[in-house]
């Protein structure tokens, strides 16, 4: 059982890291602000989700697990809001030019 959970953690965290890598490549390679934001937020949310899900079997106690989930939800909220704000200000700049 323990080994199975460990394997689950390794697979989940590794795929999470893969999403982070993909997001970073997108951030570096995509041509404009909107596509770069798209790459970054998708990668961040999915990568973070997978890392948190992978860590959940490893925490001791319900409270620590709840804190992890809360951190994940807060990161999702802030990254979604901030990417909207950046996109809006980028659109404002585009229109002015």
């Amino acid at each position, binding site marked *: 059982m323990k080994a199975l959970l460990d394997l689950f953690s390794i697979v989940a965290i590794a795929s999470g890291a893969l999403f982070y890598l993909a997001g970073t490549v997108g951030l570096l390679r995509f041509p404009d602000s909107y596509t770069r934001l798209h790459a970054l937020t998708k990668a961040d949310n999915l990568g973070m989700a997978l890392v948190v899900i992978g860590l959940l079997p490893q925490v001791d106690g319900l409270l620590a697990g709840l804190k992890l989930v809360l951190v994940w939800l*807060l990161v999702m*909220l*802030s990254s979604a*809001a901030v990417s*909207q*704000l950046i996109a*809006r200000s980028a659109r404002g700049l585009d229109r002015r030019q």
Partner: protein
Amino acid sequence: MTTVVTVVIALLLLALAAWTLVARDAFLAVAGFVAYGLLLSLVWVRLYGIDVALTEAAIGGGLTGALLIGAVARLRGTEAAAWSERAGAGAWALAMLLALGVTAVLALCVLALPEPPPTLAPQAVQNMGATGVANPITGVLLAFRALDTLLEAIVLVIALIGVWSLAPDRFWGGRPGLRHRADPDGILAYLARVLPPIGIVVGVYVFWAGADHPGGKFQGATILAAMWLLVQMAGLADSPLTGSRWLRAGVVVGPLVFIAVGLLGLWSAGAFLAYPPDWAKPMIVAVEVALMPTLVLVLALLLNGAPARGGDR
């Protein structure tokens, strides 16, 4: 493995520091500085200085970053003129010589430390029981080195007075900055409605947990101040009236209570800021609770800036 991570973080730190120095655009330099602060807090975590890491992330990265971004926005107009100025070779050489000299002296000092380095940690831990708090950092800040913390709080209040004194006479006691206007149904207003309830709970928790775990009033106060600023930036509330009696009372209550507790110690325990035995914990809690409004108000008001419009508009 851990050595590799340490080396990578150290190299990244140096690269970011260099980037912050050479970036021509002030905004890019500030962005580099914020990232540098966040990375530095990771370094503190690796050095087991969780309290310092929290403070670095909250104040070094967050609050100072926000202050600097405000400064960049104000300096936008002068940036073109600053770009056209170029320092001469002599100035460059002198600056580099000074920087290298300071670095060399610091490196020599660190390398010359005796092994093991002199420390007061054992004495501090031995006497922790007398303070009634379990987090040694809080014990040092509010019992063994309480005078430093008191002076720190007073410096913050003086800094705020310094910022306020930049206001034109006719706006004295008015509201700082422009009133922010944002789309009331937009994402910023949404965030400013959803986040503060969570942020206030987290801020108060970080403050309260400081007695036994990493955390404390500075980190908690930064989170609370950030929530207040978020509400202001989303246009849901105006910046405060700096002439308000309640606001000013809140700003000075921390240092005043701290000094009162100090004088009480002079009378009951024989020294300024000494806590009588058995009363240490309640008095430390009283000082921390009184410092909380001071810190929240001063940190938020420092970011708000000098009063720039009349009170009634």
